[in-house]
């Protein structure tokens, strides 16, 4: 652990940058229609403090979240800094996922409509039938039984183990989806791609025929090409950051 002692309120440049990107992710996710009510949560490891994570407190809509609203908890679920409280599901899902997967610097959890509907249907299988799906080849996990919202340490740890090593997305039965990545750009783009792919798969299936299956070798190559933070993931975040700086720059506050 590279953790150094932290005194409350001390925010260095790297953390400030992290806070801005995570706050932007909430604004972008809201813009894309992924928030349900005021639920769900995104988290990010504080740069240079591997066991501290930034996360949104309960009681704020994503469209109003600013960089300074984010609170800090540790990977054992303890409150570290910030005035507002974190929802118990936010605390345990994210603390346990970061603890089990230190390479995943960013964890997003949403109930985005199409990917959530996908988790409500019996025996859903994500099919590799479209170019955008390939980035998930060999990197998707399924939790096939709903056990609860993840509001305690054990369930958080169970979900973290379901995410598994090296996966970037986890479908949660009757619940929603988690994406994980080395950066805000990567995890956000995975969430965007999952939602898009679930929608496209549902639409294609209405035609009634079986879906075309992309050759597994081509899928594997596609997944490899998009490992880490892909060029298009970074470009997607940068473009939305420019939009936010024009329309609602207060996310950096």
């Amino acid at each position, binding site marked *: 652990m590279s953790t150094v002692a932290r005194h409350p309120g001390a925010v260095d440049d790297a953390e400030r940058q992290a806070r801005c990107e995570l706050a932007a992710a909430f604004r972008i996710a809201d813009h894309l229609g992924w928030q*349900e*009510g*005021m*639920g769900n949560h995104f988290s990010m490891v504080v740069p240079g403090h591997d066991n501290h994570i930034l996360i949104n407190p*309960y*009681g*704020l*809509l994503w*469209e*109003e979240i600013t960089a300074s609203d984010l609170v800090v908890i540790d990977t054992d679920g303890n409150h570290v800094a910030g005035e507002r409280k974190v929802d118990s599901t936010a605390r345990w899902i994210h603390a346990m996922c970061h603890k089990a997967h230190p390479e995943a610097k960013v964890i997003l959890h949403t*109930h985005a*409509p*199409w990917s*959530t*509907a*996908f988790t*409500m*249907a*019996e*025996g*859903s299988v994500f099919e590799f039938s479209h170019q955008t799906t390939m980035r998930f080849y060999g990197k998707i996990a399924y939790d096939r*039984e*709903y*056990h*609860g*919202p993840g*509001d305690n340490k054990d369930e958080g740890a169970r979900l973290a183990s379901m995410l598994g090593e090296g996966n970037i997305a986890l479908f949660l*039965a*009757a*619940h*929603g989806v988690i994406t994980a990545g080395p950066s805000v750009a990567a995890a956000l783009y995975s969430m965007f791609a999952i939602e898009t792919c679930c929608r496209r798969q*549902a639409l294609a*299936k*209405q035609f009634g025929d079986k879906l075309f299956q992309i050759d597994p070798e081509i899928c594997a190559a596609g997944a490899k090409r998009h490992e880490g933070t892909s060029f298009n993931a970074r470009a997607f975040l940068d473009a939305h950051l420019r939009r936010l700086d024009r329309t609602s720059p207060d996310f950096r506050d």
Partner: protein
Amino acid sequence: MFTTALRAEPSADAVRQARLDLAALFRLGARAGWQEGCGGHISMVVPGQPDRILVNTYGRWELITASGLAIVDFDGNRQDGGEGRIDPAAFFIHARMHRAHPDATVVLHSHQPYATALAMLKDPDLGIAYQTSLRFYGHIAYDSEYNGGVLDDAEGDRMASAASRPITFLSNHGIMVTGPTVPQVYEMTFMLEETAKRTFLARQMGELKPVREEVARHYASRFRQSTAKTADFWDSFLQLLKRDEGDGYKA
């Protein structure tokens, strides 16, 4: 003073607050896309006057103001305020609902898209295939009878007796949501539509996979949110309304 009033004198402040809350609820419902044309109505028992209700007059929800809401008694006599006419269906549904369910301070009736689409199906079951729907477990009634509009006391009474739970799917018609406060009804209606939307999408993908009964039961009461969470939910959306529309609803 030792007089005991037969009816508690309503506090002007409490009535004013009820008007503000209800007007804001209409505007938030409009933003969420719950209104069809100029239809749909929400009513609230006037504080301190259990036999009178606040209700909207016919028109668009996003134009509703606190002073524009009408007060009417259970016999249909206009008491106070309001511009325009009260839709007869609004009166017959809401007067009979409040008479039958005195605990339901707020009664919302809308044709919001996804929940209404479910109400058009032979089997409108929302299912228990989704975490967010667990809060509705055991709280939904289904009125499978449709007799045309609600244009008299008898049909209003029939509907009110079918609406035995906080949420009712009205066949071929829409939904009814009742609750003790405006924020609770807002949150419940909001989450109902979100759930109905996801149910609608999931049904295109296959059969719903139900959550195990004991898990659903266990979490049902937990998800009927705490009052504090509901207050946060309401406050946040109210701030959005004020940010985007100013204080217009307070007029």
